[in-house]
């Protein structure tokens, strides 16, 4: 308990110092949070995009430190920022490529299960094979703990769509856990 308090105090100091232009303090914030941010990004996007987008998240955080009011933990604020960067990037990439969610059935993306030679597939790999919307909803709801109403707002869909995508994602993933 005491250690948690000290850690929070130390992080508050680093946020203040980074806000005053201290890159060393910002590096400490980076070291503390990079695993969580990178994991979020990697799960929601293609793995080969994760490094670039993670860098973008921290650059954006550096730029937006003045909007952090300390009402929540810095990690919570950074995490939400990462979600926004991921979703914003996906939208722009989708427009550029003209293929933002071309299929709605999440099960299509994992239909190769029976053709895969390995007897077991890493859960993260199975997750990566889910279609984009189902993957995003699953990550945001089951991994990150967002509610359907929040997810629906972020994705620009109705909550019912979020629930439906989540169910399809879970159904697809349970087949991999069953193997």
């Amino acid at each position, binding site marked *: 308990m005491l250690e948690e308090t000290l850690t929070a105090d130390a992080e508050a100091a680093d946020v203040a110092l980074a806000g005053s232009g201290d890159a060393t303090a910002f590096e400490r914030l980076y070291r503390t949070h990079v695993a969580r941010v990178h994991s979020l990004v990697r799960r929601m996007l293609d793995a080969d995009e994760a490094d670039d987008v993670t860098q973008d998240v921290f650059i954006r955080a550096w730029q937006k430190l003045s909007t952090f009011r300390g009402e929540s933990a810095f990690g919570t604020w950074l995490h939400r920022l990462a979600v926004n960067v991921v979703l914003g990037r996906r939208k722009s990439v989708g427009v550029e490529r003209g293929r933002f969610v071309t299929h709605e059935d999440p099960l299509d993306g994992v239909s190769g299960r029976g053709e895969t030679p390995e007897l077991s597939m890493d859960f993260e790999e199975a997750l990566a094979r889910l279609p984009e919307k189902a993957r995003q909803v699953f990550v945001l709801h089951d991994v990150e703990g967002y509610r359907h109403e929040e997810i629906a707002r972020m994705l620009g869909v109705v909550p019912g769509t979020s*629930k439906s995508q989540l169910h399809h994602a879970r159904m697809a993933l349970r087949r991999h*856990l069953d193997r």
Partner: protein
Amino acid sequence: MNDQWTDRLSEYLDGELETAQREALEAHLDACAECRATLEALRGVVAHAKTLEDRPPRVDLWQGINARLTPGWQPGVSRDTTVRRFARRVSFSVPQLLAASIALVLLSGGGAWLALKPDAVAETPQPTPATFTAVSWTSRTDQAVAELQEALTRNESRLDTATVRVVRQNLAVIDRAIAEARSALEADPANTYLNLHLANTMRRKVELLRRVNAIAARS
């Protein structure tokens, strides 16, 4: 498998069905082993999702990030409003800044200090969370610095003379800076720059003492 019920299993699992729907589904589950198995499998997926561990990137991304922290460009100032003076919205009191800054250093190290002073843990009073305040932190910081300095005095024989001399010169410089910052803060207690400067200087002192003690411990 009855798709009518299967499609509602996630909502049931998440407690999002209305009472009548939930009761109807539970009645179906009593009679349908396949749906019960599917429900358990979905429960397993949800549980598994919560156990996923975060992993850092395979390569350190900091250098790339640091290179993009534009020199001369203050954080908190958006690119299109650079003429607007940076104004912090996060505010910290003097003791909060000071204590939290030092807390970072004390948390990040101290192992060597404790190794040099095995009874330090027993001797150091541990404040309870309820009594942990900025004021108590300031006194804890002073105590920590004093103990680090005592440890250095005891163990400086393990260091060569030149190192001890350089360390003492640096400590003297830091102490002067601390004294000047404290003096300036008495006249202008709310000055953000002075607060940060004092916190940083105190942090440097603790860091220096900790590092020197670590070197002595290895000698």
